[in-house]
């Protein structure tokens, strides 16, 4: 029985400031969980901590009971990550990125899946060009393709729709939903309330490094209203 993602007291300080402050939540396998909040509230740092790019100052994170972290190679091998910026080697081509990912994740049958991803994300024509020459939207799509190539149990997507064209957003949202339907635990940050409402099974609202509210089920269609109310209350709290 898989327990999914379990985060307990996750904290990250930069100097004296806690950018992520005692985050505790769970995300079940086969669901899409959203992290929503204003710029600088700690969403990207949370995802980097879970992806093992940063070290936590305190707290723990487990995927199906196994610890997540910098040198936890076994859990990293079942985790895909779309970072908020970067994630691409400027002098490798799109196709080379997919091959590199296949080698690093030790995949055997990957070429057909790679070609499918290039097709569905409209990257085929640029697949042999170096990533440094890609537009912002194309870079985001390639980052997504890299994270979606291995069959992971946890998929971390940090602003995956940022700069992506309208049809690309639909395609990407569909790919994330498909991955969740396959049993993957998907954690996504976005500023697009409409996408969050339709894509996510539950949404955590963050402010100043902490979780302020959780929105699920019937409350999701009213996400925008809840978000503004929670944010206003958090700002008032912060002001005091």
């Amino acid at each position, binding site marked *: 029985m898989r327990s999914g993602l379990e985060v307990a007291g996750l904290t990250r300080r930069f100097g004296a400031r806690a950018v992520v402050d005692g985050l505790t939540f769970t995300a079940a396998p086969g669901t899409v969980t959203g992290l929503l909040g204003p710029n600088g509230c700690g969403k990207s740092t949370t995802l980097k901590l879970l992806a093992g790019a940063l070290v936590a100052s305190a707290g723990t994170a487990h995927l199906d009971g196994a610890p997540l972290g*910098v040198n936890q190679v076994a859990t990293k091998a079942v985790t895909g990550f779309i*970072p908020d*910026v970067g*994630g691409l080697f400027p002098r490798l*081509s799109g196709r080379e990125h997919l091959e590199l990912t296949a080698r690093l994740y030790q995949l055997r049958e990957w070429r057909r899946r790679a070609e499918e991803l290039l097709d569905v994300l409209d990257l085929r024509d640029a697949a042999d060009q170096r990533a440094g020459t890609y537009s912002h939207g194309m870079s985001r799509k390639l980052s997504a393709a890299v994270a979606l190539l291995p069959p992971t149990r946890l998929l971390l997507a940090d602003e995956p729709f940022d700069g992506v064209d309208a049809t690309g957003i639909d395609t990407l949202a569909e790919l994330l939903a498909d991955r969740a339907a396959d049993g993957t635990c998907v954690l996504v940050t976005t500023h697009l309330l409409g996408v969050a409402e339709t894509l996510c099974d539950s949404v955590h609202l963050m402010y100043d490094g902490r979780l302020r509210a959780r929105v699920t089920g019937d409350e999701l269609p009213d996400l925008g209203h809840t978000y503004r109310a929670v944010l206003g209350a958090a700002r008032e709290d912060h002001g005091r």
Partner: protein
Amino acid sequence: MTAPARRRAGAEVRAALWLQSRDIVHLGGRRLLGPSLVAAYLGVGGLLVLGGLVVHGQYHRLPLVELFTPIWLLWAVLPAVGAGGGSLDAATSLAPYPTGPAMQLTASWAAGLVDIQYVLPLPVLFAAAAADVGVTGLIGAVAFVAGASALGQLAGWLSVAGVRAGRGQSLAITGLAVLCLGLLAVSHRSDAAGTRRLGAIPPTRWLAAGSHAAARGEWAAAVGWWGLLASPVLLLGAVGPGLVRRATVARLAGSVSRATTRSFGPSPAGALAAAAWRGIVRTLSWRAALLAVVAIPFLTALLAHPLTARTLASVGLVSAGATLAANTWSFEAGGTALLLSAPLRRRTVVLVRSAVLAAALTVTLAVAAVSALVSAPLRVAPADLGYAACVLVVVTVAGMRTSISSATAADVDSLRARPASLTAVLTFGGRCLLGCLLLSAGWSLGVLGVLTAAVGTIGYAAWALRGTHRRLTDGATLLAAFATVR
């Protein structure tokens, strides 16, 4: 130039100098370190000049020409082949601001003047000029520095502005310069007596002539020589802005070349190594570093004595390392986010990166050795190979350590890809210089000295790689450095 244009250029020059001063203030990430080091440097330099003034008149003429000919070539000519000449601000980061060529030119010139190749010889130059002629000798020294560095800027900008419009033409000017140097060196090789060596080049003769004229009280002649020395500044003012405009447009245009896809090999570490290798060799900096190390033996063979095997190893590796090693994480840029989250141990990432970097530096050394063999006879003893191996290790690990502790997004697709921060320039240069000095001392002390130096090299490598591993464990430094890179 109209009055508003003059005001705009003045504001840009001030902004560029302010940016450079920020680098000094934030040196090493500690608040008072930069200003303290600058004060100490100025203090030591002032004492040397005072010492020069005290001994002035007690000795016969100093060999200024012989002393400063190599320095003039280092400052004025080597930037043409991609070595030194200051770093360039990333064209993309300045592009959105209302800045013109004055800002780029001043920033590049100021960055060049605080590079290790200026920081070290400047006090010696001023002290020697003071000892030779007295206070007035300092005017000649200032004119010498201004002229040589201005020519270096022109050469450097010409090499990046050159013919970059079409594919395959990006290094045409640099390649041509190296070819000319090579042909000259080969033609001089047949001159067994060495009578046709270039010897002293005109600017250092002008420096000496100005000094001597001042010493004799012939002020009109002295001012004439000094004016001639500083005249490249006027040339830079006239031609520089056009070159900078052209270079900026060329660099912003970027390359759309397609990558030849070859298999990465089956193992994760092998794939990582292949990706790192491609990340280095697909840059302009790689080709520029190769051309620079090819040019060094040609230049020295033309000047005076050919390089010894050990000097070749030190100069070649440190020169190539300033581009390839001190910037090593910049070659990955945004890809570091992928590296940090990939299912690999951080130790594997550090070791693979070090091995690839060492391999790239070995290629540059091999190329430099071929160039040295072509330009003059080169004798290599087995002990020299050991020395070269130790320098290779020192340069590699010094680069790994510097590049991660002072990580910034250097423009590795420019011919002058130096470390982007002053801290990186000084720490990498200082570490390599100290390493080479200690190794040379060890090699001059016989077997025991060699063994001690080799053990010291291994110890330093272990310490530096451990530090790199620690820094990489938490990816915050690298992620912050490349946060603006896609």
